[in-house]
Structures are given as C-alpha cells and as structure tokens.
C-alpha cells in the first residue's frame, strides 16, 4: 500500500486510496453515510415526514430488529448462524401473553426467558459438542419450537388473555414525541453486548473461534463451552426481542417474528459482520438494522404494491452489500 509508506501528511485522507483505507479501518463511516443518504432520499421523495417524531418511529421499529441482528452478529462471529431467533422470539411473546393472566407478569417473563434459554442450550450443545452445522441445528430447533408453540396454542385456546399493557407501553410508546420507550431496554442491552464483545475474554474467544477454530482449540479454548454459552445468550436475547415485537404490534401469535428472521441476517451482514466468522461488531449491526428499517419505510411511503416493494428490498440488500464489500476490501 503506497498510502502506508507515504509520509503522514494532512492530505493523507484526501486521496482516493486514503479514503478507502479510512473506510477499511472504520467501516462505520460509509454505513453512516449511507444512512444519511437514505434519510435525504426519503425526504426528497416525499417531503414532510422527516422529523423528530419520524426518527422516533424509525428507531422504535429498528430496536427489536437490532436485538435479533445482535444474535446473528454474535453467532456469525464464530462462523455460525442462529436461524431459530424468529421462532424463539414469537414463542416467548406468545408464552407471556398466554401466561400473564394466571401467573402475573414477572413469573410469565421468567418462564418465557427460561424456555428460550433451554432452546439456546440445546442449540449450543448440538453445535458445540456434536459439531452439527449451526445452520441445520438452529433450523431443526426452530421447527421444534414452532411445533411445540402450536401445540401450546391449542391447549390454551380457551383462556383469552392478551399482550400485557406493560409490553405495549414498552414496545410501542414514544415519549416527548421522539424517544421510544423501548430504548430503556435496548440501550443497556446494546452496551452489554458491546462490552461483551470488545472488553471481555468471552468476546475475544468468539472472534478467535470464528477466525481459526483449530488454532483457538490448540491455544486451550474450550470451544464447546463458549458455543453453548453463546447460543444461550442468543436465544435469551431473541426472547427479549419477542416481548418488544408483541408489544409493538399488540399481537401474540406463534409466527409473529418469523418475518424478521431474514432481515436480521441481512442487517448483520450490511453492518459489516462476516458470515465466515472472525470479523464484525455490534455498532455496525445497529446501523444496519436502522438502514433496513428506513429502506422499508421509503418503499412503503412510495405506495407501491407489496410485490414491487419486495423486489426493491431484495435488490437494495444486494446493492448495499456489494457496495460495502467493494469499499471495505481491496
């Protein structure tokens, strides 16, 4: 790289190669740029809606997606993937809605999170101990969870309880015209995830396993323990996201969050997490979730039919991912 050899001058970042190097070192910058462009585009297409309140609505919609994308980021760091997050999130939201009437909210939440953790434990043991490919392991578990949730639905069909008011306030309310209440839950969660990834040994191990599993095993890392803990964390996060989804939509159904599964993978990838492991961070993923939310809001404000929206959504994911890959690799 000629840039690295050149004497450090003030104009170092002004060359094309310099900008590339900057983007490569700080991939968050092009992402923020893209987000800004998208916001401008949505203002140009339909003047008016961009305001503090609009921002609040966008963030409110992006928060649960960002949590699910966090599950994908962490599992992708180890070259895995968690395809059960959609089923787990729907299940936990549904479980709370059906249990809250009899047991009260705290117990219902605990049960939902415990069940989520069990699912994550099975995923982790399958992927870590039995070396089943995470794609297959979590796909199989999502079938299991969906089926059991359906059975539970049939058993509980008489008890007419619904989404608890607390969840609705948490998931759907916007304070002061622009601050979604869900941030109370999300900001600490995001800080914990970032702390976990950047400042703890556990986070280092995730990167190490994804980068070179053999090398990390030879250096003494017990990858099965790390993976088991990882998938439990992922499933519990998905369970929490399920609370927000049920609150946001005021619906408790066993397939509620299934449609968020593929966007959660896309958000992590757009955010710069490598699906082959070892590279990525959560801040990029959060921006990725926001970008996807803004894109789908632009598409729905254009008033196109569902079919065209889907096509444009897919095309934009390819385009953004391609542009991002081109910018950040040489």
């Amino acid at each position: 790289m000629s840039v690295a050899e050149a004497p450090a001058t003030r104009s170092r970042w002004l060359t094309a190669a310099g900008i590339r190097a900057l983007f490569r070192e700080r991939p968050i910058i092009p992402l923020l740029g893209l987000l800004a462009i998208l916001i401008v585009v949505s203002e140009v297409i339909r003047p008016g809606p961009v305001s503090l309140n609009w921002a609040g609505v966008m963030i409110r919609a992006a928060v649960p997606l960002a949590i699910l994308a966090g599950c994908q980021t962490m599992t992708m760091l180890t070259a895995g993937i968690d395809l059960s997050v959609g089923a787990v999130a729907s299940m936990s939201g549904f479980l709370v809605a059906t249990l809250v009437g009899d047991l009260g909210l705290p117990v219902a939440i605990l049960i939902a999170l415990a069940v989520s953790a069990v699912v994550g434990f099975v995923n982790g043991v399958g992927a870590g101990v039995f070396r089943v490919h995470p794609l297959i392991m979590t796909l199989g578990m999502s079938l299991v969870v969906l089926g059991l949730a359906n059975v539970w639905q049939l058993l509980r069909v008489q008890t007419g309880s619904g989404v608890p008011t607390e969840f609705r306030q948490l998931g759907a309310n916007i304070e002061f015209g622009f601050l979604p209440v869900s941030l109370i839950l999300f900001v600490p969660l995001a800080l914990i995830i970032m702390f976990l990834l950047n400042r703890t040994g556990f986070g280092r191990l995730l990167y190490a396993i994804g980068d070179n599993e053999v090398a990390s095993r030879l250096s003494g890392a017990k990858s099965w323990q790390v993976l088991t803990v990882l998938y439990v964390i992922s499933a519990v996060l998905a369970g929490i996201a399920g609370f927000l989804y049920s609150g946001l939509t005021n619906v408790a159904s066993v397939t509620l969050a299934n449609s968020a599964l593929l966007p959660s993978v896309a958000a992590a990838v757009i955010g710069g997490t490598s699906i082959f492991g070892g590279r990525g961070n959560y801040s990029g993923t959060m921006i990725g979730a926001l970008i996807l939310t803004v894109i789908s809001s632009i598409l729905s404000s254009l008033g196109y039919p569902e079919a065209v929206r889907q096509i444009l959504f897919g095309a934009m994911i390819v385009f953004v991912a391609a542009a991002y890959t081109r910018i950040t690799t040489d």
Partner: protein
Amino acid sequence: MSTTFDTPTKTTGRSVATLALIVRRNIWTLGLIGILVLLVVVTKIIQPSYGPAGIQGLAISVLPLALAAVAQTCAVLARGIDLSIGSMMALTSVVSATLMADRSESFAIIVVIGVLVLGLILGAVNGALVVFTRVPDIVVTLAMLFVWAGAALLVLNTPGGGSAQWLSALTRGPLFSQWVPRAAVALLVIVGIIWIPIRRSRLGISLYAVGSDPLAAFRSGVSVSRTKIFSYMLAGLFSAMAGLSLTATTGIGTPVPGPYTLMSVAAVVLGGVSLAGGTGGVFGPIVAVVILSLLRTDMTFLNVDTNLATVVQGLILVGVVMVGSLIQMRRRET
C-alpha cells in the same frame, strides 16, 4: 475421487475390494435406503391397507420437494447455498400456470421449454451476482429470495391459472404396473437425463473440485467463477422443474413460496451432502425426501397432531445429523 483403484490382489479379492469400496463410498446413502425399507415395513404394519394408492400419493407429494433438494444439492456441492429456491419455484410455477391457462395442449410444450430456460436465467442471475459482487452466497440468495418472490406476486396476485392436461397426466396415476407411480418415474428420468451426464462430464468434476477446495481447483486450471455460475444455473433449472411439477400436480400456480427452501437444505444434509461442499450426490437427498414424507404419512396414520409431527421432523433432522457427525468423529479417532 480417484476412479482407478489398484490393489495388488487376485481378481476375486480385487472385485471384493472394489465392492467394499463402493459400499464404503456410498455408506450414507445405503444407510438411508435401509432406514427407508424399515420405514416401509413399519408403514405396512401400522396401516395394512397401505398399497398402490398410498404410494402414488406419496410420489406426488415427494416430486416437488425432491426436485428442490436436487437443486439445492447442485448449489451446495460447489460450496454455495441457494436460499432462493422456494421463490424461484413460486415464480416458475405462476409463470407456467398463467401461460398455460385456457391455451392449447401443444402451446404448453413451448411454455414448458420457456419456463426451463427462465429457470436457467434466474440461476444465472443468482450465480453472476455471487461471483461478481463477492458478497457471500447466503446473503445474495437471501436477497434474491425477496426479489423472485416479489416477481411471482407481480405475475399472479392470488393462486390461479391452469395446467395442460398432458403435463398433469405425466405426474398422476401409475405406469406399467399399479405399483409404479408416474411421478416417481418422471423424477428418476429427469434426474437421470440431466444429472448423470453432467456428473461424468468435465463440468461435473470441476463442480466437485471447486466444492472441495476452490484454490486448488483454480490452480489446476478450473475456472472457479464459471463453475459457480454453472452450479447456480443447474439449481435454477431444477427449481424450474420443481415449479412446473407444482403446477402439474396441483393444477394451479401459487405465488407464495412454500417451505421448500429450508426443507431442501434439511434434505441435502440428511442426504449426506456436506455443507462445506465437494462431497455427496443427488440420490442421497432424494431418498431423504422420501423418508421425510413417508414419516409424515405414518404420523397421520397414527393420528399424531400435525404440530407434533413438525416437532418430530425437527428432532429427526437434528438427531440424524448428530448421529452422522458422531460416526464421523469416531472414524477420525480410530
């Protein structure tokens, strides 16, 4: 993948050794066939009246899923994965159903050929995007899932259209004897005509080579990009056939993709194809699809709740793969 295997033994010993080699190479598929036989016996015990009608129904329900599994195999062998198979099936199904509705029987021949070409084109788009954008396969095909599903909705908003008589007749009823369903014959003929020549050709070998080690394949003079695009084109072609078979068996086109993509991934893994690419063939996944469908039939006979049947399917998927990897680990240790 050496085709010659020389052992310094006598002719009789050699044929035994070759046989042992064939068995060892196809141990997974043979094991699956064993499970299938066992399952058929169990089915006969549970439901003594299970006969030609049941087998024909099974073959019809297996056909689209088996073709989807073959499509997925083509992508996975070259170390890719195609998450857009279900959407491509929906798109090709609605295109064929709209074009064939209220048209002459001979026009349908042109439609079938056109839809197969469409499948090749869809696959080529997937493959070209994977190769030229350098974005991971799983992400590109995930995005294309939305694109093709949206296109299917554009073509036909609600289920409708029709199928030509002869196309439906190809999949329904028995052939020769009442025990041989036409759908099964159609499946074997299609796969035999397309897959076996490719498997034996230069392209087939490069497919496996790229799947087992892209760098080594590149250094041996295999064009990795061309092979990748070719594998996705094959996946598109088989998806188009799966879509046509959907139209043929149901008589209409449905724009909403079924659960075929994820089931095809499951069938591929159950069928002994490694997700890391380079090992396996198309017949393992086909047997896996038959097992999964027969299992579902058995559970209906036993009056198992359909939701519990989903649970069992998931458990079997995970369980079989676990056992498989345990066996592999054992083998590596000894």
